[in-house]
């Protein structure tokens, strides 16, 4: 039996189950406890679990993320919330020089089982400093793992896998997905965990593959309906879910099936996730392509504030449909 939960509730349920499963799991971050979370993902968890397990930190990202990394080397399993992933920049040294490299620099003597999670998206008119989308940035560091779920079920299944993983996992959510609802399996039916590195075919099609992650998946699904109904184009939608590890087999399979690919990625075009996927397709499935791989990314500028135009800077169904029709 599954129930309908919001993305936010599904994440919370996943966190709650992991808190119950492992006493070494501790949630820390700004406003996660007494305030119930800036985006209410952790609502009620402090009341249930108390001060030890749900820790309010000061606005001090380098300090508390570094603290979590140090504690993880001793066996604590910190799950640290960034109120916005955009704030990664003030903790960057901890996130990349310490979390990503400590295992390597120690020749495998240390490891760092942390999760850093929070929203990483544009589209809420909060301007350039609060709209960074760094999944491609962090996936570029060997030693790190990155995922970006699009649906409530994926959010729950992946956060549980991330917490159980023994490497640092950077988990990118989306403020515009938190309120979305979807079916999530009932805990009574068993432990629901989605392994990292497994893409999900969200819509089967035959004419073109739309490959995306995070909120772009939702846009692709909407665009696919319009393409089917108004243009007779049957698009397949592959949701990567996990950026690193990456389900390369699923990518190549859909390319080999439809022979046309549009990559949809909310990050900027230079060196983003889509740029990497494009390279993988070129290296491994060049002969299967009937047309060059194309991309819809955010328009290549810092995130604009204006509510009148921000949605046009980001991938959206209109931009996806326009690009698909140009490829046909």
């Amino acid at each position, binding site marked *: 039996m599954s129930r309908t939960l919001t993305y936010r509730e599904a994440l919370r349920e996943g966190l709650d189950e992991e808190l119950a499963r492992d006493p070494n799991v501790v949630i820390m971050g700004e406003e996660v406890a007494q305030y119930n979370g800036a985006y209410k993902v952790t609502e009620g968890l402090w009341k249930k679990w108390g001060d*030890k397990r749900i820790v309010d930190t000061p606005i001090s990202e380098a300090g508390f993320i570094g603290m979590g990394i140090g504690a993880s080397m001793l066996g604590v399993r910190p799950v640290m919330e960034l109120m916005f992933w955009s704030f990664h920049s003030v903790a960057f040294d901890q996130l990349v020089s310490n979390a990503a490299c400590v*295992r390597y620099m120690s020749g495998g003597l240390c490891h760092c089982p942390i999760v850093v999670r929070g929203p990483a998206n544009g589209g809420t008119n909060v301007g350039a400093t609060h709209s960074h989308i760094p999944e491609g940035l962090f996936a570029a560091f060997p030693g790190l793992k990155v995922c970006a779920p699009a649906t409530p079920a994926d959010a729950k299944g992946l956060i549980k896998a991330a917490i159980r993983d023994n490497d640092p996992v950077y988990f990118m959510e989306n403020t515009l997905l938190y309120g979305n609802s979807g079916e999530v399996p009932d805990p009574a039916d068993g432990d629901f965990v989605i392994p990292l590195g*497994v893409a999900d075919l969200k819509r089967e099609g035959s004419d073109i593959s739309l490959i995306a992650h995070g909120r772009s998946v939702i846009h692709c699904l909407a665009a696919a309906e319009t393409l089917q109904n108004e243009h007779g184009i049957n698009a397949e939608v592959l949701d990567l879910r996990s950026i690193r590890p990456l389900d390369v087999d699923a990518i190549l399979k859909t390319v080999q099936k439809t022979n046309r690919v549009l990559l949809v990625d909310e990050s900027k075009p230079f060196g983003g996730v889509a740029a990497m996927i494009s390279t993988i397709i070129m290296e491994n499935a060049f002969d299967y392509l009937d047309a060059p791989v194309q991309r819809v990314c955010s328009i290549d500028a810092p995130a604009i504030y204006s509510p009148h135009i921000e949605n046009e800077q980001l991938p959206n169904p209109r931009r996806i449909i326009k690009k698909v029709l140009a490829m046909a």
Partner: protein
Amino acid sequence: MTSANPSPLDFASSPINQSLTPERKIELFTQMVRIRRFEQAGLKYYQAGKIGGFLHLYIGQEAVAVGTISLGGPDDHFITAYRDHGHALAVGMGMNECMAEMFGKQTGCSKGKGGSMHFFAPDKNFWGGHGIVAGQTPLGLGLAYGLKYLGREGCCLCYLGDGAVNQGAFHESLNLAALFDIPVVFVIENNGYSMGTSQERSSAFGGCLAQRGEAYGMEWDVIDGSDIYEVRAKTHIAMERARKEHKPSLLEIDTYRYYGHSIADANHKKYRTPEEIEHYKQNHDPINVFRRKLIEEGVLTEEAATAISKAAQEEAAAAVKFADESPAPTIADISTDVYWETDNQTEASKIGRHFFDS
């Protein structure tokens, strides 16, 4: 609060030093000598091109690592920055694996993947060996937080240089340590220079750097790092505060390095006068100071001291031989120790691609 002024107290007679047996005193002296001989050998082979990258020597500072780490029990943990050879040997790491690490060999403590700055021995509660100035301070805080979270005894000594005191990560760590009552002791090893910039040209301070702890409501103290007895007596108080009260401290141990920031620091004789370096060597060299004291106490003889030095020199030479003859890492070794899951070939590691070499 403690005064920043040097104290004329006789630290040899403090209880923590009174408890030292003659054998233990000689052991501490030997550790200091071993660190110096190890590094002198390292310097020789760095200059001979056998060691790559940076070489940040600890020579002149030996009483700090040996004195503080000698206070550690099985529950206490240690973490430092890139000038890490002294701490590594003081926690009990062997010269062989340390020298081999600098030589970039498979037999190195980090399999040749870390180098001089990244010695680790978690089995000896030594957590590195970190490269970015002050980047290790939140980690030291976190180790101590972990001890408290897991309900374990002990504390964490987190070392940093005087050049680290102006980094944001350090101040964030002080704030969190005091706010959360974390059993950590931050130890500023003040050798007077942040690379080539003297303390006066890099830090705004009142009486001393440790006084900054006051801003966080934290106990602090200043220690003469040339006297291992003083180092032990004062650090012991801070460690007990951490262990028993879960209260952090900030210590500033005044010391001196004979060499440059690293051996690549060609200017180190320009920003310091030869007289300044010579003055320290003559009057404050921690090994000479301790040696004199131990001879005065009748614990050590000149002959025994010379024998200790000779043995350490031979040990270092043997470590060089071991390192030189050890195999280098292979190209395949480049891709291991990146992910725990892939190294352990877990189910999770078999799902999806982790590496993107084409």
